[in-house]
């Protein structure tokens, strides 16, 4: 494979927490050289735009198998490439769930045939995500599962969950939990409070998250499992997370981009594109969670990309499906935090690229010699108004329709190959 040079870039290095001019030479799909200060040369002139390790997005829902009308590998991977996501870590909450090595093999073969970005699948922790029998964790690991999660189906039996965690621990498998107490959150569409009361919608207390987290952390302490929380979205849950980390438990946490950039009031007059799981929180919670990302208490930011067709969203709010597409809007939305002064660019890419890759034991997510040349070139400043019908996802359920965004992806590279070029889009 021939060598390519990307020069005159602002290199966003999350490991060194630095932002400096320079060039990157790609050879054989890997980063062959990093040349600080190099602003001239032959190859691609980045014109001072930012070059960062491609996003590793943990928790992406793809509609295959089962719901290809909502999202296919083809559409999801093109959306990912256009959003600077070079590794999709796919959720197992498909129909059927990815709970056997055979289903996993099918998913991997579809990804190989259709995807322009890397796809790494999770597998379910329990069969059919029903919380009763554990899946063949070892077989699934051998088949390529990078983590084990039942998604938003919370295991209600602590004894069964403790066995799953113990079994996974012995295999070194990473378990990803959703920490909303299922009893307290049953039927809820929004977060409890003044807004929910005015709208008359079924609501859940913020405490459901702390309860779910405290239970899971106790079981992690009991089993020595490797554990990641998909989303921490409330201030009340943060002290428990901090205590667990201080106690040396093998625990990390994520948050969705929506909980960092939107709050419960955005639901307005029953706008179902703002219905996500867990529900959007109060502004104080949003601010606390942004601070926790800045402090490193919350390790990563993900899209929690959840495609839903128009039919499942055009319903009375309580009946409408949850979730939002976000592969293409993750970076522009996250740049709001940078422009607002809450995060630096290197800190943002630690949260979206470096930390998720590290947690999964992947070599990408870094600007380092020898690392895969998975890169995103973007202009953090260019403004645009989002039009949901221009999204590449088959489903257009974004809460950012019509929103003013600042920052857009110019090109994405996977193993040195350009998989997205914004100029090909301008028409």
């Amino acid at each position, binding site marked *: 494979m021939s060598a390519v040079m990307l020069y005159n870039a602002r290199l966003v290095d999350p490991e060194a927490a630095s932002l400096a001019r320079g060039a990157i030479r790609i050879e054989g799909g890997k980063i062959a050289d990093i040349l600080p200060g190099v602003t001239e040369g032959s190859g691609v002139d980045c014109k001072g735009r930012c070059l960062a390790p491609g996003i590793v997005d943990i928790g992406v829902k793809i509609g295959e198998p089962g719901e290809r009308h909502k999202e296919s590998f083809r559409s999801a991977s093109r959306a990912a490439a256009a959003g600077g996501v070079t590794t999709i870590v796919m959720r197992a909450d498909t129909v059927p769930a990815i709970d056997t090595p055979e289903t996993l093999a099918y998913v991997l073969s579809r990804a190989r045939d259709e995807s322009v970005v890397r796809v790494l699948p999770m597998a379910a922790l329990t069969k059919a995500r029903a919380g009763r029998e554990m899946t063949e964790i070892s077989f699934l690991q051998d088949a390529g599962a990078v983590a084990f999660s039942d998604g938003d189906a919370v295991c209600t039996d602590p004894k069964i969950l403790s066995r799953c965690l113990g079994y996974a621990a012995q295999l070194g498998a990473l378990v990803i939990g959703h920490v909303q107490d299922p009893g307290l959150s049953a039927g809820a569409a929004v977060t*409890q*409070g*003044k*807004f*929910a*009361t*005015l*709208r*008359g*919608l079924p*609501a859940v*207390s913020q405490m459901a998250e702390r309860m779910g987290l405290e239970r899971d952390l106790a079981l992690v302490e009991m089993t020595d499992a490797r554990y990641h929380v998909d989303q921490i979205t409330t201030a009340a849950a943060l002290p428990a997370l901090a205590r667990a980390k201080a106690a040396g438990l093998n625990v990390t946490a994520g948050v969705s981009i929506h909980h960092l950039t939107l709050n419960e009031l955005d639901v307005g*007059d*029953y706008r179902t594109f703002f219905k996500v799981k867990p529900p959007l929180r109060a502004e104080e919670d949003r601010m606390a969670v942004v601070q926790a990302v800045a402090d490193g208490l919350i390790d990563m930011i993900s899209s929690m990309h959840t495609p839903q067709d128009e*039919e499942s969203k*055009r*319903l*009375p*709010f*309580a*009946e409408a499906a949850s979730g939002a597409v976000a592969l293409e809007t993750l970076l522009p939305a996250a740049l709001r935090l940078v422009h607002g002064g809450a995060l630096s660019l290197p800190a943002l890419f630690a949260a979206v690229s470096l930390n998720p890759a590290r947690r999964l034991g992947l070599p990408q997510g870094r600007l380092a010699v020898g690392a895969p040349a998975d890169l995103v070139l973007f202009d953090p400043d260019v403004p645009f108004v989002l039009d949901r019908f221009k999204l590449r996802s088959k489903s257009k359920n974004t809460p950012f329709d019509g929103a003013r965004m600042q920052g857009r992806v110019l090109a994405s590279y996977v193993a040195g190959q350009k998989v997205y070029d914004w100029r090909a889009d301008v028409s």
Partner: protein
Amino acid sequence: MDFSARHLLGIEPLAQGDIRSILDLAEQYVDLNRQSNKHGDALAGMTQINMFFENSTRTQASFELAGKRLGADVMNMSMQTSSIKKGETLIDTALTINAMRPDLLVVRHPGSGAVNLLAEKVNCAVINAGDGQHEHPTQALLDALTIRRAKGRLHRLSIAICGDIAHSRVARSNLLLLGKMGNRVRLVGPKTLMPAGIADLGVEVFDDMRKGLKGVDVVMMLRLQRERMDGGFIPSEREFYHRYGLDAEKLSHASADAIIMHPGPMNRGVEIDGTLADDINRSVIQEQVEMGVAVRMAVMHLLARNLREARTRPEEVIA
């Protein structure tokens, strides 16, 4: 005259002037309704469809009578037995009804916000006749008219709303309306039936009914739905009645001339003592029903006027 809105989806977007306009017009219809010839012509030639996705006898009858007295062609659709059961979505139902070119749609639905959703998809005026636990604006308006007639004013009154606040759209619409008009609103009920964050809405919250009723001018009781017992909200009907049922002793803490209201249907002996409900000196429950027809006539009259005006504006795409 104020109130230039296209729909009546809730009290929340209304201003004081809107509310006054509706109530003033309703007064005229109270007079009309007391004559032997009760016919007006504000809705002449118009089609009114009542779509009730949730059971209701009195509200539907009230809207039907209001429409008929104003000369509309009124059709009632009981949506619980119709195509909804066959899996048709609310939007498809709305589009189907819309294609029949109604002028007024009166909608009740068990889902909060469902009427807002439907209103986005149709060309006619939509009246929310109760959506989930969100709003029931015509109930609040008829309550306001009843209070104004009994008390001679609709401001600087102290009003206690009692019982199952959490599940009540009537309570929400009432506290919004009464607050907008400059009254002091108290909410009385057990903590389990009091929604979170309600105190932030400018009301006083009481779990002791005697303290809550102290000196109030109006006691507004809410219906306790029997299924609340299953959800573990209260231990039993008799304990609820003991603590929160309105009887003569509890009422004695209110102003000597306090009136008693109830949106109906009543559970006698659960939230209200039967003789108290029938006490013609204190209870205005029957008058509420009468005001209901007048208020609905006024609301439909004004919406029909707004619709006619909108249709004469060339830039509007209203069919």
